[in-house]
């Protein structure tokens, strides 16, 4: 028999093997390994003679077939004669052939589907430009995420609180704007003056924090119209004078009345 074919029409060694088995009208479940192996090897040799570039996988299967063929020659009875059959050396090969055949059939089926689908036509998208507007931005807000994030945050915070509780806070005592305003009011009273230099509001020990705090407090008092400030030159002295007209007009705090009167 001479095969005038190119090997590349076979999709792989299994494809060739399946072809040979079917061509020989053999059952996959009862392959005459010796016969098939001879045919298979003959095939490959013919190909080599024709200078066909053979994929190594074809040789791998050839080797596997030869191995199965040799195993078939060995008695499959156990040496002790208990009659237990060793596994048929062809089993794995049969499984693989069957699996390959299943997918080969599936491929044929896909081919049919493809053929039908090629007879169905779509139309391209219309020109959407007349319909397109500016992109709508929308916010993806997920309530669960919202609550989860906040829970995490609260937990973190609570843990921090726990840690803080175990340590006593060592901090410079700081004064609030309110108490500083109060202090400045009292200063006016103690010194019995209507006018004070900004420097006089500070002590020589005042640090930067206190300077800033005093300044902010002064601004707050100006806003409340409790004092009037004057600065004759840039970076010059600031003079503060109690605002005589501040007659409980602003916040209506009783202390304010006291100072003024």
């Amino acid at each position, binding site marked *: 028999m001479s095969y005038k074919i190119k090997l590349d029409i076979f999709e792989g060694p299994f494809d060739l093997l399946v072809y040979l088995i079917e061509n020989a009208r053999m059952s996959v479940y009862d392959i005459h390994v010796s016969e098939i192996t001879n045919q298979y090897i003959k095939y490959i040799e013919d190909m080599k003679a024709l200078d066909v570039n053979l994929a190594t996988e074809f040789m791998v299967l050839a080797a596997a077939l030869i191995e199965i063929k040799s195993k078939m020659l060995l008695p499959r009875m156990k040496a002790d004669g208990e009659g237990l059959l060793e596994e048929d050396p062809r089993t794995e090969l049969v499984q693989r052939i069957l699996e390959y055949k299943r997918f080969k059939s599936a491929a044929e089926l896909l081919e049919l589907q493809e053929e039908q689908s090629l007879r169905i*036509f779509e*139309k*391209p998208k*219309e020109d*959407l430009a007349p*319909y*397109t*507007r*500016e*992109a*709508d*931005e*929308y*916010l*993806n*807000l997920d*309530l669960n*995420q*919202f*609550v989860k*994030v*906040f*829970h995490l*945050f*609260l937990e973190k*915070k*609570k843990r921090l*609180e726990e840690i803080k509780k175990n340590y006593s806070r060592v901090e410079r005592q*700081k004064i*609030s*704007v*309110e108490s500083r305003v109060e202090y400045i009011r009292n200063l006016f009273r103690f010194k019995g003056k209507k006018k004070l230099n900004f420097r006089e509001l500070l002590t020589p020990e005042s640090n*930067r*924090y206190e300077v*800033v705090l005093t300044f902010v407090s002064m601004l*707050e008092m100006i806003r409340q119209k409790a004092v009037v400030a004057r600065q004759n030159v840039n970076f010059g002295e600031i003079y503060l004078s109690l605002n005589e007209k501040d007659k409980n007009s602003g916040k209506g705090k009783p202390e304010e009345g006291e100072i003024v009167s």
Partner: protein
Amino acid sequence: MTSKKTIKSAFESMLFVWGEPLDVKIAAEIFNMNWKDAYDYFKELQAEYEQEGRGILIREIDKSFQFCTNMENSEYIERLCTPVKEKRLSQSALEVLAIVAYKQPVTKGEIESIRGIKCDRVIEGLMKKDLIAEVGRSTGIGRPILYGTTPVFLKNFGFKDLKDLPDIDDIGSVVREEEEPDGLDLQQISIDFIKT
């Protein structure tokens, strides 16, 4: 002889694939039929689509026919074609939003003292997205702005009103602890100083 039904079905397919107005002459040639018959078939098809109030119609332009969409649906097509950009809130934005939601009305200082970090940019971002808004001014020193959530916030989360907000255990205690006087508020100020 090809049946009328087959021809009309084929005309539909041809109109669909062709896209552009299809000349009756071309269609007639394909079926080897006379022009008038082909024209009548197209008119029948056109009438069918119109009667059934379909979303696609057949229009006649200079002895050619073409599928087109029903004008009445242009609004929906517009919505279909409008691209949508999805945005998500960042972790910090969600945190600030939660604080505002649960503590409103609230000042920036309070938010910052709870989170222990500056929030100007985040607050700005949430305002831009219309999720929070200025709702007034505190009577405290400096009369700081008070923030609250907006109807957009409720809508986005699907709340009917603020009472719909899920209960968060311990939220009160955690937030309150931080409010104690002598506290973080001043620390916050000192942080600001260092920065500048």
